[in-house]
């Protein structure tokens, strides 16, 4: 058992950008552990893929079968189980996408292993038999935790978006095709077409200034104080998931892994603790100002300017000060 295998995600010939980050993590892991690197992706029959996976020559596998399109967890688990049994890698890395979350835990179970999910860093500080340390977050980002693989089978790891810097892309040549044994009867779910809800009108991705509100606002009746601030700043109003879950703001105003990914000049986070699902969506912001009553809130780890305090006292004062400055 040797090697690092990175599973890349693509849809209709377009690579998920997190795949490149996973390759970067895989390359570092391969170098540190002195093992060869291989990459693989799954696709339907006749997939036209341009392999741009970066760095030095790497073995690439195209796992191809008509039953792999559209995606189902059953087909992916069966196909990857066969590929992994053939290659016998020590490590199997995935980008932490929604698709990976859907099938990778079941795949790991087939090998009596546990997926170490949404890893934000890999440390190699204790060289030797203990192996690398996989860092992931606990308690909505309030704590970090060091995990180690203890099993005898392959170590399955998924990598959180934005945690590893993607390599420059260069071509890697022709992949080897691997055709898994798959039967239609093994696939139990019937997926439909992907769709978006109609009437999505708010495009936060282009907004230069965003005022974003989280759980700290307490209740819907308190929203006007952040609406007034957004208005004073000429900003788009956004929110973290719980605000939209409660129906206080429409889902299309949500920033995060399940909402929109934004990159404004200014992101003003109000009463947002900063769980990783939210940080993933706002990491590209040029400047971040955070106001939160909890000094240990993870949002302060990514903020340029932080205010520990009561948003109900600070936000109205800030709105006034901005109005005065603009007058």
């Amino acid at each position, binding site marked *: 058992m040797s090697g690092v295998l990175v599973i890349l995600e693509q849809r209709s010939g377009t690579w998920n950008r997190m795949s490149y980050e996973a390759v970067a993590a895989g390359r570092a892991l391969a170098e540190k552990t002195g093992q060869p690197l291989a990459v693989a992706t799954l696709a339907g029959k006749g997939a036209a893929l341009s392999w741009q996976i970066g760095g030095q020559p790497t073995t690439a596998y195209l796992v191809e079968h008509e039953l792999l399109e559209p995606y189902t*967890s059953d087909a992916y688990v069966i196909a990857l189980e066969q590929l992994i049994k053939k290659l016998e890698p020590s490590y199997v890395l995935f980008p932490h996408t*929604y698709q990976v*979350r*859907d099938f990778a*835990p*079941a795949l*790991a*179970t087939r090998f*009596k*292993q*546990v*997926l*170490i*999910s949404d890893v934000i860093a890999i440390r190699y500080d204790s060289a030797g038999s203990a192996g690398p340390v996989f860092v992931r*977050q*606990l*308690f*909505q980002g309030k*704590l*970090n*935790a*060091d*995990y*180690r693989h*203890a*099993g005898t*089978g392959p170590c399955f790891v998924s990598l959180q978006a934005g945690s590893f810097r993607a390599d420059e892309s260069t071509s890697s040549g022709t992949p080897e095709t691997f055709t898994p044994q798959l039967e239609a009867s093994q696939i139990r*779910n*019937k997926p*439909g*077409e*992907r*769709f*978006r809800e109609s009437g999505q009108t708010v495009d936060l991705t282009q907004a230069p*200034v965003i005022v974003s509100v989280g*759980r700290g606002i307490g209740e819907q009746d308190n929203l006007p104080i952040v609406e007034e601030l957004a208005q004073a*700043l000429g900003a788009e109003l956004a929110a973290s998931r719980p605000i939209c*879950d409660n*129906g206080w703001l429409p*889902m299309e105003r949500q920033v995060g892994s*399940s909402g*929109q990914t934004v990159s404004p*000049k*200014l992101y003003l986070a109000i009463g947002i603790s900063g769980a990783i699902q939210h940080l993933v969506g706002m990491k590209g912001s040029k400047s971040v*100002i955070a106001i939160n009553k909890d000094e*240990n809130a993870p949002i*302060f*780890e990514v903020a*340029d*300017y*932080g*205010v*520990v*305090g009561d948003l109900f*006292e600070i936000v109205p*004062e*800030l709105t006034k*000060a*901005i109005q005065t*400055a603009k007058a």
Partner: protein
Amino acid sequence: MKIVVAIKQVPERDAPIHIASNGRWIDDADLNYTINEPDAYALEEALQLKEKNGTGEVIVVCAGPERVQSTLREALAKGADRAIHIEAEDLTGLDTLGIAQILADAIKPESPDLILTGLQSDDLGLGQTGVVLAELLGIPHATIIMHVEPTSTGLKVKRELEDGWFQHVEMPLPTLLTIQSGGNKLRYATLMGIKKAKTKELKTVAASASTAASAVTLDRVYLPEKQKKTEMLTGSPSEIATKIVEKLKFEVRVL
């Protein structure tokens, strides 16, 4: 439809988190516990499915020490029909596979049509117990589900994908779904519900013995290091407002 909802008891979100002296978990001496929020949405989905159908049974299952019975009672007060407490003093030594195995062993004799659970937990956030449970039980699964609709042959569910995309998936029964928040509004337990809950069955079963060694170990927990050098702005609210305006003018340049 017989629906099992697997729920987890977790520390309240606002609870101050202190690292235990051995550095391997948190100090749980003074913590208040509650139902894992995504699991509350799974319970809500189960209760609504039963109400829409007019028949069926909702059984809540939770593994942990005696304190988890309060969370099970709350689920009964909201409308679950009965509860199973899988008694396990300390679960921290088990990995996801171990936890899913004791859940599978307790759920299997019930032969449910549908198993629901939240998409991830607020404490560990591994987001895989449901998928592993389905794999161990040999039933299909679908994750991050916003809506569930019974059909003549099984279920039609609405999955949330990334970046605002969705997908419908048709699946046979029995099956397992992990439920996303926001698909439904959570209900509160009524006074009548709380009264009724006292008469409902809460069965305690022993956790099945774990045979396998852990596939992963949690070595250490610690406070995250800052990724950015954050300048903290202090003072009275109006002083802070003035300082932020200065930053907006001269550093961020949006005013």
